[in-house]
């Protein structure tokens, strides 16, 4: 970015927004918006508290478990739908429906099924992440060059070898793209799940902060969650780039 002919560093637009926030906060322009500096101070205060650490562990645990389940279910399901027309006809409609449905509306049903606890949060992460993983895996498996499959057959590949040595590696770039998008959705899931359950983890903290009008803490927590989501998506994105290197010739 350039301003009055001077090159500004990458993050300067972010700084500009932070300054605006600070000013707006100090002038008390917007209701419930404390100055940015106060939010930063609150952040340093809440991070070391036992409640925050416990909530963080719970969030990470629920997120990891839900994502693991989403990958373990989504990838095989996508492979099945990519290889079998019948499976695609039977399941494709539902997967597409769930992909674009407002899934938050289903969380209350999960709460009835799984109770007001971590199981519901795990299930929410799973529900948010699994469909895009399934669809991207399916697309990857579909786009495996037919001649690669024929090649494997002419050299006598059995079923297991065909999947392990040809289909899965060939579809890996799409699978990882699905996982990256799944991670982003999963973060939404873990936050929404906690907010709706609201008696454990960050949900409980949010509930506490907003009910007691602790706006500094509220915003500090929000910013931390955003950063968490960005960092995770970036990590998977990096892994994806490495894999794209070898898939570059397709």
């Amino acid at each position, binding site marked *: 970015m350039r301003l009055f002919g001077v090159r500004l560093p990458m993050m300067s637009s972010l700084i500009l927004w932070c300054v605006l926030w600070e000013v707006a906060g100090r002038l008390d322009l917007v209701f419930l918006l404390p100055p940015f500096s106060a939010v930063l101070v609150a952040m340093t205060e809440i991070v070391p508290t036992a409640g925050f650490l416990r909530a963080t562990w719970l969030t990470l645990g629920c997120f990891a478990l839900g994502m693991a389940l989403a990958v373990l279910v989504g990838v095989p399901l996508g492979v099945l739908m990519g290889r079998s027309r019948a499976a695609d006809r039977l399941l494709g409609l539902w997967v597409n429906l769930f992909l674009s449905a407002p899934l938050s509306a289903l969380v209350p049903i999960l709460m009835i099924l799984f109770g007001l606890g971590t199981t519901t949060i795990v299930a929410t992460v799973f529900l948010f992440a699994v469909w895009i993983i399934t669809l991207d895996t399916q697309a990857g498996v579909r786009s495996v*060059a037919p*001649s*690669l499959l*024929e*090649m*494997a*057959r*002419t*050299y*006598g*590949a059995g079923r297991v*070898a065909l999947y392990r*040595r*040809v289909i899965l*590696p*060939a579809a*890996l770039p799409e699978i990882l793209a699905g996982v990256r998008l799944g991670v982003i959705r999963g973060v939404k899931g873990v936050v929404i799940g906690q907010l709706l359950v609201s008696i454990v983890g960050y949900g409980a903290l949010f509930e506490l902060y907003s009910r007691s009008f602790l706006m500094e803490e509220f915003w500090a927590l929000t910013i931390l969650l955003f950063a968490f989501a960005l960092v995770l998506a970036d990590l998977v994105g990096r892994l994806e780039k490495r894999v794209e290197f*070898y*898939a*570059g*010739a*397709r």
Partner: protein
Amino acid sequence: MIQAMEAERPAPAAEGAVPAVEVRGLSKTYNGGVLALDDVDAVFPQGALTSLLGPSGCGKTTLLKIVAGLLPASEGEVRVMGRAVDGPGPERAFVFQDFALLPWATVLRNAAFGLELRGVPEAEREAAARRCIAEVGLAGTEGRYPHELSGGMRQRVGLARALAVDADVLLMDEPFSAVDEQTRRKFQEDLLRLRGVERKTFIVVTHSIEEAVYLSDRIILLSPGPGRVARIVEPEIDRTLSPEAIRRDPHYLETVEDIWQGLRDFVE
């Protein structure tokens, strides 16, 4: 009629021997109802290079894939060394038009992949692959990836993979169609040299008359709609001549012209 007579005449290369591949009464109707091959009889003698020649859509790929066991025939049978087959087998190896290399694997692993699928231990299969990579003129590229190679080099990797499994019959579907003309000529000469040292049976699909005449001991001409054997030609090119001399040789030119006259009717 010519075809029946010709087909029964054993090739000079293998007098009295069982043909490496033989197809009898082969027909193929695709699911959509397209009749691609209609009652094809053909013999591919051991140790000879036989071309399948014909215009696009006349069923060359279909015939080759049925011989490879990749496609089921609707009628008729394929015999390899006298035994009827109905699927792929270790005695046949296929070289693909689009190379069919694993983009995530090095040249070495690609060349060894046929052996990998057959469960050959790593050291052994890599030794065999290195030998074949050298044989097709790619020594030194073992650690590279397919997207770092030219089209001609990629096809050589595909050929090395087929050589590494040491099949008796090499099936090649337009192996030179995706490479430029210079590479193509070099490749043709290499193929002739390989044929001399490897004692394998080659079945090569092509739509180039010159290429077929230049390479083949025997050319099976297919006519389109539906694919049938139209004619069989044995070019009998004097291989002691240099490549340039062959391309100027009157007998070579006559054979090319003769085949062109025959095929012209189908194209028009």
